[in-house]
C-alpha cells in the first residue's frame, strides 16, 4: 500500500467558508483521483475487486455504483462526526459506518438486482475491506469539512470506476466477444472465439498493467531511484 501517498494529502487544508462550492481547490479534489492520483493505477488500492468483478460490464457498473454510494456517504458522515469521534475508537467507528452502508447496499441489490447481486457474490461485502474507502476516511474525511470530503470521496469513486469500466470493457469484448451481453463480433459477422485469458483474473492483471504503462508514459512518470 502506498501510505506515503495517503499521508501527503493530509496537507490539504480546510476549505474556508467563503469559498465557492466548486472552487479550484474543490475541483481538484474530484479531478486529481481521475488521473494523477488515481486510487487504482497510482496508489494501487482496491486491486482485489478490480480483478474480480470486471469479467463483464454490467456487474462492474453496479459494483462501481455501490462503491460510489458507500464512499460518498461514509466520507460525509465521518466528516460531520469528525469532532465528536473519540480518537481511540475512530477506526471502529469508521468500520461500523462503512459496514452498515455496505450491508444496506447488499440488501438493496438483493431486492432490486438479484441476478447481479449473485454475480457479485462476496465482493459487495468485501467493499468493507476496500482500502480506498478506509484510506479516504483516514486521510481526508477525518480532517476536512463534509463538502470537500464528499467531493474527495466522489472523485476517488469515479477514479476507481473509470479504471474498472475500462478493464471490464476490454475483458468482456475480448473474453466473451460482447459488450453489455450484446454479441458484437457475431453482429458484425465475424467468427470470434472468446479469449480464455481475458475471462480469467490474469486477463485483468494484464490490462491493468498495460493501463498503468499507458498512463505513466503519458504523464511522464519515472520511478525514483
Amino acid at each position, binding site marked *: 500500500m502506498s501510505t506515503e501517498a495517503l499521508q501527503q494529502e493530509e496537507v490539504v487544508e480546510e476549505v474556508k467558508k467563503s469559498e465557492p462550492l466548486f472552487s479550484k481547490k474543490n475541483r481538484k479534489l474530484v479531478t486529481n483521483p481521475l488521473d494523477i492520483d488515481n486510487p487504482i493505477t497510482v496508489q494501487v488500492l482496491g486491486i482485489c475487486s478490480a480483478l474480480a468483478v470486471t469479467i463483464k460490464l454490467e456487474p462492474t457498473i453496479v459494483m462501481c455504483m455501490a462503491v460510489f454510494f458507500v464512499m460518498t456517504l461514509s466520507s460525509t458522515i465521518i466528516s460531520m462526526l469528525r469532532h465528536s*469521534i473519540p480518537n481511540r475508537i475512530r477506526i471502529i467507528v469508521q468500520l461500523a459506518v462503512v459496514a452498515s452502508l455496505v450491508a*444496506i447496499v447488499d*440488501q438493496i441489490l*438483493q*431486492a432490486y438486482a*438479484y441476478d447481479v447481486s449473485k454475480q457479485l*457474490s*462476496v465482493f459487495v461485502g468485501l467493499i468493507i475491506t476496500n482500502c480506498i474507502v478506509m484510506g479516504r476516511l483516514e486521510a481526508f474525511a477525518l480532517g476536512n469539512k463534509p463538502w470537500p470530503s464528499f467531493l474527495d470521496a466522489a472523485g476517488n469513486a469515479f477514479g476507481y470506476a473509470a479504471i474498472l469500466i475500462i478493464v471490464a470493457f476490454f475483458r468482456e469484448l475480448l473474453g466473451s466477444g460482447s459488450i453489455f451481453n450484446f454479441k458484437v463480433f457475431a453482429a458484425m459477422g465475424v467468427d470470434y472465439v472468446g479469449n480464455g485469458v481475458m475471462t480469467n483474473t490474469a486477463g485483468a492483471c494484464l490490462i491493468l498493467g498495460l493501463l498503468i504503462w499507458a498512463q505513466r508514459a503519458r504523464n511522464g512518470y519515472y520511478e525514483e531511484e
Partner: protein
Amino acid sequence: MAFAIGMTLILGTALAFVSESLKDKQRAEREFERKKFILSAALGTDQINEMIATSRDEVNDLYEKRVANLVVGADGTPIEGLSADDVIVAKEYKKLQRNSDEVMEVKSGQTLRLPVYTIASEDGEGIAYYVMPIYGFGLWDNIWGYLALQSDFNTVQGVIFDHKGETPGLGARITEQGLQERYQGKKLNNEAGELVSVNMQKGEGADYSDAPHKVNGMTGATITGNGVNAMVKDYAGLYSDYFNSLKKS
C-alpha cells in the same frame, strides 16, 4: 462510551429497518428464481432467459400452466396434502447420512420428504419431464440445484447448479450455462439398469460425447466437482424408488 452505544443503536436501527422493508421483495425474487431454475432445467436456460428478457410475467404464466408438484416419501409413495413448495430441501438433507457403502440413507426416526416438480408436455397431455431438487456440499459450503429427467427416468434433460460460497472462477463455475449443458442427454443408469449416475471427470477438454455417464470436470475445482457428483448420485438414488413405482404402473 456514550458515543459507541449511540452509534450502535442508530446503525442497528437503520439496518433492521432496511432489512425489514426489503424482505418481501427479496422473498419474491428468490421465489421467481426457483421457478426460473425449474423451468430452465427442463426447457433449457436459453429459452427461459429469452422469456425473462421480454417479460417476467410470461415465465410466471408458463410455470402456472405447465408445472405441477407433489411430495413423495423415501419409499417413493406420494405424501398427500403437502406441496413441494413447503418442503425445504436443505432441512431434508440434514435427515440423511452416508452408510458404510457410501450410500445416502435416512437417519433412523426421520421421515424424508422429497419434492417432485412435473412439467406437462407442450400439448398438455401427460408429463414430459420430472424435475427434482438436489442438495449437497462442495468445497466451502452447500451446493444445490435441480435435476430434470425425461419420462424414461434415465435420460438427463438438463441440470441447474447453484452454490453458496464456492471459489469464484473455479468451483463457482458450476453455475455456468455451458458447464450445465454438458449433462444434457447423459444417462443415470447403465444398460443393466444399475445406477451409475453422471460424473464429472478430472481435467477438462476431453471428448465424452460417447460416454453416457461422463462429463468434463473443472480444472482447479476437483473437490467442488466431487461434491456435484455425490449430489447427483445421492439424489438419483433417493428418488429411484419413486421412479421404479412409476415405471411399473
